Every structure is written in C-alpha cells, then in structure tokens.
C-alpha cells in the first residue's frame, strides 16, 4: 500500500514521458472548462426552488407557508424563490453558505424533521439562525431586490413611510428587525424583539 502511494507520488513528480507538453496544456485547459462547467451547473442546480422543495420537509412546511404570502403571489407576478432569500448571491458567500448547508443534508439523511410536529419544534432555532444571519449581513438578501434608495416613500402608507424614514434611513435598524415572519409563520416569539 505504502509503496503504491510512493510510486504514484514519483510518477506525479516526474516529467511526462509519453504525452507532449502541448497535449497536456490543451487537455488540461479543456478538462478544466468541463470540470468548472460541471461544478457550476451542479451548484446552480442545487440553488433552485425545485431542488429545495424536492424534500418533503421543505415541501410540506416552509413552502406551504410561503404560498400564502406576498413573496409568492402578488399583483405584478414577480416572486421570490427559496434561494433568493436564503442563499447569498455573491460567489464567496454563496460557497460559504453551501458548506453550511451540508449540515442540512445531514439532517435530511437522518430525518431530523420528518413530521410537521418536528418542524414546529425546530422552528424557533431555525428562525433565529436566519434572523442572526440577516442581521449580520444587514439584510443583504432583502436588499438584493428592495433598494432603500429606490423606495418612493410618497407611495407608501403614512405608517410605513414614517417607520422607514425613522429607522431604516437612519441605519438604526435593518429590514429583518421589523419584517420577521413575512414569508413563513413565526415561532413562539417570547423573549425575541420582533420590532
């Protein structure tokens, strides 16, 4: 076993004996394209709502709740899908989130949330994790669509305009501080500041 590893290491360190330099460069380049394309395609495939709701726990719980909200159905027909809010759009952050999400694969494999009751039990922990994430990145996923500088306060209700002027523009609060539970039902909010 050890000798075989040593052989492989020696082969890797030595110059190529049969393949030309041109073949290796071009082949490596093409191979790289194929590999990177495949990687990105697979990554994007896991970044779709179809993929998210392919698990019954996602399909029967959070997705059902989303359907009643304005982020799913509204007058203009523009809607948010799961990754729009739950996965950062920038590549580095996206990869970081994807690595964290491997823990969710673990949960899926071992059936952490198999029933609605289990979903409700875990809801608070999961919700707090998302709130903390959005508070830390200044509600980045909200702001990917909702630009504060493009909000026409005159088109908002008095209540909304005043609150946005006082808390959002001043930077005192970020979107998620007030807008919790806009896409899914809220857990027991005892001890959580919902404003």
């Amino acid at each position, binding site marked *: 076993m050890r000798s075989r590893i040593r052989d492989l290491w020696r082969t890797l360190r030595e110059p190529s004996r049969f393949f030309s330099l041109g073949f290796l460069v071009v082949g490596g380049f093409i191979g790289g394209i194929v590999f990177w394309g495949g990687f990105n395609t697979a990554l994007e495939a896991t970044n779709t709502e179809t993929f998210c709701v392919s698990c019954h726990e996602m399909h029967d719980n959070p997705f059902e709740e989303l359907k009643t909200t304005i982020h799913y159905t509204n007058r203009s027909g523009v809607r948010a899908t799961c990754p729009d809010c739950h996965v950062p759009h920038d590549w580095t952050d996206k990869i970081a989130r994807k690595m964290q999400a491997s823990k969710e694969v673990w949960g899926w494999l071992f059936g952490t949330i198999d029933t609605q009751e289990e979903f409700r039990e875990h809801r608070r922990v999961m919700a707090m994790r998302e709130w903390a994430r959005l508070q830390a990145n200044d509600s980045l996923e909200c702001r990917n669509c909702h630009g504060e500088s493009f909000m026409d306060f005159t088109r908002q*209700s008095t209540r909304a305009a005043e609150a946005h002027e006082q808390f959002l523009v001043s930077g005192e609060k970020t979107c998620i501080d007030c807008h919790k*539970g806009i896409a899914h*039902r809220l857990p027991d*909010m005892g001890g959580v500041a919902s404003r």
Partner: protein
Amino acid sequence: MIIRTLFLAVALAAAAAAALAQEPVGRDWVATMRLDALTEEGEAPRMPEVENRDLRRVRNYPEQPPTIPHKIDGYQIDMNFNKCLDCHSRSATGESQAPMVSITHFMDRDGQFLAAVSPRRYFCNQCHVVQHETEAPVENTFEDIDTLLEREAAGGQD
C-alpha cells in the same frame, strides 16, 4: 272549466312577469345577495380595496370597538405571536406611536386586571375590523346619541 283555468294561468303569468319587470335591481334593493336570475351565472363583483389611510375614524357610540384604519394582510394572530400587539402593546407604543390596547383588555372575567392582554381579548379581529373602500349595500339609519339629544333639546320627537 278548462278555459277558465287556462285564462287564470295566463293572467297570473302576466301579473308575475309585470311584477318581475318592476323589481328594482341594484344597490337599493338587497332582499338577496343574488341579483341574477336563477338560471344565470352572475359575474362576481370586484373585491374592494382595504382603506389604508392611517386616519382614525369616529366611533358611533363610546363602546364601539374602533375600526382598523390600515391593512392587516397576513397578520399572524395565534398562540405563538400576535402581530397587532407588535405595535399596539403597552411596551411597543413608544416606538410605534400606535394607540395602546385599551386597559379594559387586560381585565379577566372576574374584573381582575392582568399584567398583559387577557386571553379572552387576545383575538383582535373578533371585534376590530378593517373597512373597505366600497358603498354600503344597505342604507344605515343609525343616529348617534348626540344627534338624538340635540333633537330633543330643540323640542323634536324621539
């Protein structure tokens, strides 16, 4: 005999047709919510908008639960959370500048005041409702107490 019956039937039918033709149709006539003939599929009226002006409305009598002057779409009120209290609870009013839930809502059935809203007053929209931007289908002849008192002072009846 047969002729007389036939004549009667025709007369009755004519009278019924005349009565049907005279029946007023529209908002003034609300004997039924269905204004189309039984054989016709009526067009559903448009759903009116909820008034969202944030302006308090006058109550018609002091005990009236105030109506909600804003949209409450998707507000969650269940054992986990009450979206209304998010702004209208005692501790929230400083930040939200919303009117506080009346102290009567803190009272339990024995008249004891609790520390927070009593469970029997927890479900806000059992009494408080939004108003829609639409005409009332039935005319309302309600007069408030001030109007009645004024009329009596002026020497009128009632």
